[in-house]
Every structure is written in C-alpha cells, then in structure tokens.
C-alpha cells in the first residue's frame, strides 16, 4: 500500500529495544515509569497554567499572575494549599468507597501512558494491542467517578455520576469506531506502528475520524461543551462535590491527566505523534499535545453546555452513524485503490467529510424537549 509503509512488527522491536539500555529490560521499565509519572505531573501543571492563563486572556481578564513569573507557579501554590486542607468524608457516606474512588479515577490515567510513544520506540511497553489497551483502561475511570458519586451520599454528585456513566458508555462507541478506521490504514494496533505509518498525518487522511474522535474524546473527559457531570451552574461540582483536601486534588489531577491523555492520543493517532522536522521528537510530541489541549480550552471558553438528552442524541444519532460511514468509506478506499496517491485520497476524504457533516446536520434534530408528566 502506498500510503502506509511496512513497519516492523511490534514484537521484533520489543526484543531489540532493551539492548540499547545498559541493564536491559528492567532498567527500561524503571526509567520509563519514573519518566511517565514526572511527565504526567509536569504536563498537568502546564495544562492547568495554560487553561487558567488562556481562559483569562480570552475572558478579558489577566488570570493568575502572582505566583512566579507569569503565574507559572500557580499550580504549585494550588497543590500546596489543597494538601493542607482537611479531608472530609460525609457522615452518611460509604467511607471505604469514598476513599477508594479518587485512586480508581487517577490510576488508569497513568497506566495509559505505558503505550504512548514519546519518540521512536521510546515507550514503556510497545504492546501489539496498544490502542485497544488504551480504550480498555480509559473506561475504568468511569467506575471511579460513579463510586465517588455514590459514596458521597449527595444527590448532586449522584446525578453527576449517572450523567458520567451515560456519557462514557455512549461516547466510547464512536470513539472506538473512529480508532478502527485509523487502524484500517495502519494495519497495526501498536501505537508505535501507528506513528511510524504516518508519513502524512492522519488528520488529513481521516478528517471525519479526527472530528469524531476529538468530540467523543472531549465528551469522555468532561470537557466543555460536554461537561455535564461537573456542570458548575447546575450540579455545582457534580461527582466531586463532597471531596476536599488531597482527595479533591486527586480528582483535579485525574481530570487534567485525562486531558493530557486524550491530547496525547489525538496527537499519536492523527497528528503524527512525535514526527516532525528540526526539533527533537519528544519536543514535537509535547508541542502537539499542547496545541490539542489549547483547542479544548478554546472551546471551553466559547461554547455553552449541551443538555443531557442532546448529549446522548449527538452520540447516537450524529457521531455513531458518521463513524460507521467513515469506517465503511475507508475500507472501500483501501480495497479499491490500494495504490492511490495519498494526496488524491486526502482531497476525496475532505470533500466526503464536508458533504456528510453538512447533510447530516440538516436532517438531524438534537434532543427531545419537554416531557409530559
């Protein structure tokens, strides 16, 4: 196939990779665990800073500017403040589940980074089912959110948690179908192979897939306009309303590390991952992750929030059929013109995307409106 090169099998590289390291496989494992934790924590701090400063600029105000130059140390100050706060468990709450929930939300977000490549082969484990692993692990945090909502013994948090379950279950499907059309192009589930296959970023070859993935990803991690689970004007804070101190910090951390993950996966799947000229690969990766996150900040400051039935309608009536059509079209293209020039395919796919999105939004109605009671 012209557009996709024949990448070496994932297994082959796993055997050769540790030999680059002085003490072999275990040093590789140890170094990458530390790197991933440090990377996630630093990126979260960067994201919090970017979000608060960026939103400040977009909202005609300054944003945090007291702690450190340009307010860069604001996340540190926040962390110190929140660590010194008291942990409060509601008297009527389920104490063990309440304690466990932040861990269940946060741990999977670190685990996903095991398969995200920072450079060619620079990843903790090049699983040959990498992207499938991402999808599987990212669903776990929904369980933690529901645990938090249930154990808080608060109606607001329960409603927020139920909304979260509904959203995650619905949006997982278009998300996976969008991933499937990328996997069709590469012929491999390994994240590293997906990056190696992108001589042209897949955002050009799969514009519709990118849109679906981006929207579903935003919905999965509760970013605006789909932030119904913690809607501050309705549910006050949603599932983490009864959390304080360190446990709240864990939720806050998890929220932003989920944003890091979705940005990293979008970068890996659609923006060519660490590929790029001049700059070193890891820097390209970070720059792209920040660009994706900036778009999320942008939408957050721009758009109002959708309603829960509209959220469901968007997933099932808009994104899911389009994702299936996209998968179908990609399959046909790969079967009929395997030797097509990538630039022809890009033009055809962008045209198809524009037509489909326009057509579908014409005969698609959001939500159901009033319920007779």
């Amino acid at each position, binding site marked *: 196939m012209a557009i996709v090169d024949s990448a070496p099998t994932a297994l082959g590289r796993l055997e050769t990779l540790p030999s680059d390291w002085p003490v072999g496989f275990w040093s590789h494992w140890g170094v990458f665990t530390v790197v991933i934790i440090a990377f996630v924590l630093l990126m979260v701090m960067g994201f919090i800073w970017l979000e608060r400063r960026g939103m400040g600029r977009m*909202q*005609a105000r300054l944003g945090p500017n007291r702690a450190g130059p340009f307010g860069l140390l604001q996340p540190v100050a926040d962390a110190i403040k929140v660590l010194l706060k008291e942990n409060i468990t509601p008297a009527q709450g389920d104490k063990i589940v309440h304690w466990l929930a932040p861990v269940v939300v946060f741990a999977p977000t670190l685990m996903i980074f095991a398969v995200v490549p920072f450079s060619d082969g620079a990843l903790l484990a090049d699983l040959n089912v990498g992207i499938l692993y991402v999808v599987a692990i990212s669903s776990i945090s929904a369980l933690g959110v529901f645990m938090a909502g249930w154990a808080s013994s608060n109606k607001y948090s329960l409603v927020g948690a139920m909304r979260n379950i509904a959203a995650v279950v619905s949006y997982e499907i278009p998300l996976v179908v969008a991933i499937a059309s990328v996997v069709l192009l590469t012929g491999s589930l390994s994240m590293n192979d997906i990056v190696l296959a992108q001589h042209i970023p897949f955002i050009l070859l799969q514009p519709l897939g990118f849109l679906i993935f981006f929207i579903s990803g935003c919905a999965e991690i509760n970013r605006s306009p789909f932030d119904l689970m913690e809607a501050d004007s*309705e549910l006050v804070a949603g599932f983490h309303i009864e959390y304080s101190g360190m446990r709240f910090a864990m939720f806050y951390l998890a929220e932003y590390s989920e944003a890091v993950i979705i940005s990293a996966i979008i970068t890996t799947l659609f923006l060519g991952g660490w590929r790029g000229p001049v700059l070193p690969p890891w820097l390209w990766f970070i720059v792209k992750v920040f660009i994706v996150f900036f778009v999320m900040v942008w939408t957050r400051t*721009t758009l*109002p929030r959708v*309603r*829960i039935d509209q959220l469901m309608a968007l997933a099932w009536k808009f994104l899911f059929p389009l994702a299936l059509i996209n998968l179908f079209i990609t399959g046909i293209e790969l079967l009929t013109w395997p030797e097509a020039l990538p630039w022809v395919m890009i033009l055809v796919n962008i045209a198809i995307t524009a037509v489909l999105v326009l057509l579908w939004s014409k005969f698609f109605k*959001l939500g159901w409106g*009033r319920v*007779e009671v």
Partner: protein
Amino acid sequence: MMAIKTEPFVLNIGPVHPSTHGVFRMRATLDGEVIVNLEPVFGYLHRGIEKLAEERTYTGIIPLTDRLDYLASMSNNLAYVLAVEKLAGISIPERAEYLRVIIAELQRIASHLIAVGAFLNDCGAFFTPFLYMFREREKIVDLFEMLSGQRLLYNYMRIGGFTQDIPDEFLPALDKFVKQMPSFIDEYDYLLKENEILLARAKGVGILPKELAINISASGPVLRASGVKWDIRKVDPYSIYDRFEFDIPTGTAGDCYDRYRVRVEEMRQSLRIIRQAMEQLPAGPIRSEVPHLVRPPAGEAYGHIEAPKGELGFYLVSDNSIAPYRCHIRAPSLLNLTALRDMMIGWKIQDAIIIFGSIDITMGEVDR
C-alpha cells in the same frame, strides 16, 4: 423476576447554589433528570423594607429603595421619587427630567447586561459572556460613580430632582459610551445569536404562554417575550418618555431565547433614547424647591415605572406626617417568578436552571 422499584426523588436547589442568583430555594421533585414537581421557597432575604419605610422620613427611604433591586438602584430611586412627587404634587425642572431618563436608561442597559451574561452563564458558557458583559457594565458603573460617588447603591435621586448636578466630565464620557456600545452589542450578537448550542438549549424551552403571562401579571421583558406589547413607558408615559422615539421589542414564542433577544434589543432602544435625551438636554436647575421634610397631604399615590425587570411600583399612603403611613412595593421580580412552576415542569434540571436565569430576578427585590 421482580421489576426494579423506582421513585421520584427530591432535590433541593439552593438556597446556596451558584445559579439561584441570591438566596432562593427550589424544592424540585425529579424523575431521573425530569422535573415532575417544583416548589419555590422565598423569603431568605426578607429585611422588612416596607415596614422600615414607615419609620423613616420620605427622603430617608431612598437609601432603602437602593437595596431592593441592587443591580438597578437608580430605577428603584426613580420609581420611589416619582411616587412621592405624585403624592405631594411636586414638579421638577426640565433638566432633571432629562437626566432621569438618561440615568434610567443607562441603568436598564446595565441591568440587562447582567441578565444576559448570567443567563448565558447558566447555559454553561463558562463565564466568558458574563465577564464581557461586566466589562461593559463597568463603564456604566463608572458613569454613575461620577454622579453619585457610589458604584452599586447610588442614592442619587431626591424628591424634586437630584442631590447635585452632573460633573463636567460626565457628558463626554457618556457620549463615548453611547458611541462604543452598539458595536459591542453587535459583537455579542455575532458570537451568540446564532450559536447552535444556545439555540438548541434555549429555543422552545420554558415557554410562558401569552394568556398565562397576562394572568400572573408578568411585566417587563418576560411579558414582552411572550408577545404582549406592554411597556409602561408607552402605555402610561411617566417623566418625559412621551417626547422620545423608541420601539418596544417583543418576542413571539415566549421561550428563554426570546427573553434573551428582547433584552438585547431593549439595550439598543435604550441607547436610542439616551442619544435623543443627550441632544435635547437643557441647562438649568436640577432640583426644585422642596422642604427638607416633605409632608404630603393625606392621601395615596401609586407611582410606577418600567424598571429593567418589569413594572416597578410604589404605593404610598400619607397621613400628612413626615413618614408614609404605608409603603407597598410592587416588585416585578416576585410577580414574574410566580410562573416558575408552570414553566419548569416537564423540563430537565439543566433547563430549569436556564429558565430561572432567563426570568432575571434579583432576590433583594423578591424578598424585600
């Protein structure tokens, strides 16, 4: 197999909640997310202003009126002094009449800016429109600060006129504001008027039918959005409103979106009135000769104005003493709020929040 037993649950929205605009409580019975019953609970901010007024001199009540609808203090002042002037038969100089119109319309713009901003915030637009609206309101507050030295509770109007004349820098600053503001309103319209999510959230949501709106004696933008062309400035012109040209924007459906649109259009009309009043503003005194302690003849009077939130009326009964025998306030927020249950039932929690936001109430006025 036994079916799962489900039952509606009760959710207390408020009294302390980001979207209740003060201390208001809604006891909502929910079936899932759908509201099946709703019981509004008032009275958390009751300060007994009507009773306090009976113990004060007529001039001493003016600071109390500031604390009714604290987002439109000037309008409250105006409604009150109009009622007293009607009761005591006091006429005021031309210049004061024009200034009152300018100030009342500026206050309407300021109040509508907050109403629209808070409504969009309730829709979930994370503080962006709110802060932009506050940026414009800040200019109006600066203008009022020039006049009265205050930024929220102005206490500027007096029976028979004003405390002091406008400073020299007021008119140039007002001129600048009036020139700038239309482009800002256009910019907000460009950003929000056709926003898909806003249309999906607000169009057809929380419909207040025309008949119901009239029956609950709703007024202001809430009534006009339901398609009733009723504006005190036109139907019972007070002050000198009959000298100005302006339109009354009305909606058709009576939904949240129409209420939002009516407010935006009213801002444009207010600017039109201010522009005309600035051109015609005469020189002269700003206060007529009024005794320090006003003793109106025994009797009663009802003075009402088109306040930003609706018909604001003061009913005063005098027994020829220095304090009113009775002071009743017709608060538009309270009466507009009485349709809350009918508007909300059947909608979801998220809709309930924006319906409540679109009515635009101030708790200081509801509870008095």
